């Protein structure tokens, strides 16, 4: 079966970006939006078709899904195996990501028709959304490290453009810059890691690096400062992944990125871009497992710490989008944790499968939560939950959607989140009991803060709203309904059959004990939240006073941002940057200016020689001719 049509999945969004970017001003906004949404719909159908065809290809024998490369275009060739190509790699993970990205993108496109209606720059918004879709999808089908890096950066740029969409607001500009700079800094590590890895493995290609249990990398035995070179390379690659996926301490950009429009937060900062790091680790998993197991443990610990850290902070935040942002941080921490504890091979790769399964379901319910939050913000014109309450009477559909999302994320049975979280907990239990307890605690905290959010917004104190609070328009409600449905149903996909570390089928055992434990702690969290927030009372106040300093610290996100600011201002800017700037201005520029000044002076002096007076020329000509003749005679006679 010829899979070359797959290339359309990438060309179409790129074309839409080009058309809307160049000619968007000449189209009516509605038309631009419908065009983008329509094309995204086509792309989604093509992705589904690709998945359908891929999983039925006869190439897969012995129950292992082989990667398929339908398109590959050689770009730069350094040597026999070291060649940078642009191509499309289809394997179970890539195909799954294609479906996820295109689906969430379609929902966001549709939703934005209603949410962004009347905004200035509507066409520009859709152009950037298409650019993002193109970059993200090309990233997940990258055949080699170079292509992945290119699209990694492109995704970063799309994120920058979209966070700073309201470019007249200083907070948005600052947030966009922060996001880009932090991820760029992380990408420095990523680049060095790529270079190290490709130098020692002799190739950029994923298939060659990862194939045969990553044997091509194993031959390297040199080491540096106690770690093998491979371990350094994979550590640096993890640095890149940590930046993009907002792991501690590179998480600072994600809460600020909420300055962008809410659909953007749903698409980029909940469902797709931030999971690029998880995707990268999953891609390079054999290398991690076989040659850098220490780094894999580090990944697990970082993921666990981030999820706990973010969950604590989320309990104290009062901006609806910030709570969701910290929740995203926490869930990605789960994914990293699960990858970190995973094994390899048919029986053992539960962690890997669980992580990607959670990625899949998280994309669905987190985007649902963000879109529902967007509907609330759109109706109330307000971000802070302290000024919301009792909205269940005014917005029934949104209320239902938000409730479904909260139940999914809390891990209540029959909703998708339960199944994926279960698998993660099982994987943690099988490999690392301490991390299991952390994950279990975080599950409880997750339920608590999500339902705190839910009860405060939709129940709580009945407030008086200045403008009439309307239900969201139909273009916003339909994606919410679809996503709610998927959030329930997605849990039943037999994920392990399709995606696992070595391509085999993977079945997970069912531990009833763990299921009961997780559901119990989730219910406890929900009940505490209900008690504290469903009706207005003084209990939250008393609790915050009792927690005192710890509460204040958590509320201020444990002052990590201030720490970074201190380091950059006092340590980097003042001594180093000022000196360098001085040298640049006075020494380097000074030299160039001096040359220019000298030239000018000389020119000014010489200018008088060409006076334009013909007689002067005649005089000099005659004098020179005489002089030359004298010289010649003198030379000839001697």
């Amino acid at each position, binding site marked *: 079966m010829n899979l070359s049509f797959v290339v359309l999945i990438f060309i179409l969004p790129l074309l839409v970006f080009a058309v809307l970017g160049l000619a968007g001003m000449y189209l009516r906004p509605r038309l631009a939006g419908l065009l983008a949404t329509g094309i995204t719909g086509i792309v989604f159908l093509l992705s589904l078709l690709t998945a359908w065809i891929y999983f039925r290809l006869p190439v897969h024998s012995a129950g292992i899904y082989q990667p398929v490369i339908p398109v590959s275009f050689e770009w730069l060739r350094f040597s026999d195996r070291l060649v940078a190509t642009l191509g499309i790699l289809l394997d179970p993970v890539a195909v799954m990501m294609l479906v996820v990205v295109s689906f969430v993108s379609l929902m966001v496109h549709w939703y934005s028709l209603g949410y962004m209606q009347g905004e200035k720059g509507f066409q520009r918004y859709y152009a950037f959304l298409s650019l993002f879709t193109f970059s993200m999808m090309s990233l997940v089908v990258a055949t080699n490290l170079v292509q992945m890096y290119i699209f990694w950066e492109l995704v970063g740029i799309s994120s920058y453009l979209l966070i700073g969409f309201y470019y007249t607001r200083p907070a948005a500009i600052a947030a966009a810059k922060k996001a880009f700079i932090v991820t760029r800094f992380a990408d420095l590590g990523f680049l060095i890691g790529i270079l190290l890895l490709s130098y020692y493995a002799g190739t950029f290609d994923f298939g060659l690096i990862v194939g045969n249990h990553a044997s091509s990398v194993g031959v390297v035995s040199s080491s540096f400062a106690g770690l093998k070179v491979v371990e350094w390379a994979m550590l640096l690659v993890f640095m890149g992944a940590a930046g993009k996926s907002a792991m501690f301490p590179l998480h600072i950009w994600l809460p600020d990125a909420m300055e962008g429009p809410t659909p953007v937060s749903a698409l980029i900062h909940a469902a797709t871009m931030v999971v690029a790091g998880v995707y990268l680790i999953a891609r390079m998993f054999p290398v991690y497992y076989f040659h850098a197991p220490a780094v894999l443990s580090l990944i697990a610990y970082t993921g666990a710490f981030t999820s706990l850290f973010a969950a604590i902070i989320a309990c104290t935040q009062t901006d609806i989008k910030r709570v969701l942002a910290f929740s995203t941080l926490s869930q990605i921490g789960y994914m990293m944790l699960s990858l970190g504890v995973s094994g390899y091979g048919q029986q053992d790769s539960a962690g890997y499968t669980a992580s990607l399964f959670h990625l899949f379901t998280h994309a669905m319910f987190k985007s649902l939560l963000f879109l529902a939050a967007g509907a609330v913000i759109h109706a109330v014109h307000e971000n802070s939950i302290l000024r919301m309450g009792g909205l269940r009477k005014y917005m029934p559909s949104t209320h239902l959607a938000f409730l479904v999302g909260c139940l999914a994320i809390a891990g209540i049975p029959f909703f998708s989140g339960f199944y994926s979280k279960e698998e993660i907990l099982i994987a943690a239990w099988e490999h690392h009991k301490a991390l299991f307890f952390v994950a279990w605690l975080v599950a409880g905290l997750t339920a608590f803060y999500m339902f705190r959010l839910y009860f405060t917004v939709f129940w709580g104190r009945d407030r008086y709203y200045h403008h009439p609070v309307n239900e969201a328009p139909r273009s916003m409600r339909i994606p919410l309904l679809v996503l709610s449905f998927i959030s329930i149903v997605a849990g039943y996909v037999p994920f392990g059959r399709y995606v696992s570390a070595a391509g085999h089928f993977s079945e997970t055992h069912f531990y009833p004990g763990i299921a009961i434990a997780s559901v119990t702690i989730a219910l406890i969290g929900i009940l505490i939240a209900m008690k504290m927030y469903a009706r207005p009372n003084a209990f939250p106040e008393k609790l915050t006073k009792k927690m005192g300093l710890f509460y204040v610290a958590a509320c201020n996100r444990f002052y990590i941002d201030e720490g970074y600011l201190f380091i950059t201002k006092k340590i980097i800017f003042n001594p180093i940057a000022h000196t360098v700037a001085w040298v640049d201005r006075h020494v380097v520029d000074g030299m160039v200016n001096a040359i220019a000044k000298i030239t000018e002076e000389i020119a000014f002096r010489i*200018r008088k020689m060409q*006076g*334009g*007076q*013909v*007689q002067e020329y*005649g*005089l000099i000509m*005659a004098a020179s001719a005489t002089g030359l003749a004298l010289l010649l005679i003198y030379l000839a006679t001697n």
Partner: protein
Amino acid sequence: MIQEIPITHVLVLSSFLFFCGICGFIIRRNLITLLMAVELILNAVSINFVVFNKYLFPHQMEGLFFALFVIGIAAAEAAVAIALIINVYRRLGSIQVEDVAEMKY
């Protein structure tokens, strides 16, 4: 004539005329007098060629023709120069060399 007057005398005469022309070219402030100095130079050159022809190559006529052409070109050049001078006079009202300085930087 050849027997009576040595060639160097005639050549000295023509070079005196030539250098008079050069001096006049450098000194003169009026465009027309400048032109007259140039005519002096060309005239001296013609004498030179003719004299060489007569004294050194009496069988040939190259010198004659050269002088002929020089005179022809001098005529053409003088015509164009006069036209230019008239034009300059119309525009600037004066034919002093210093006044023709509009295009000077």
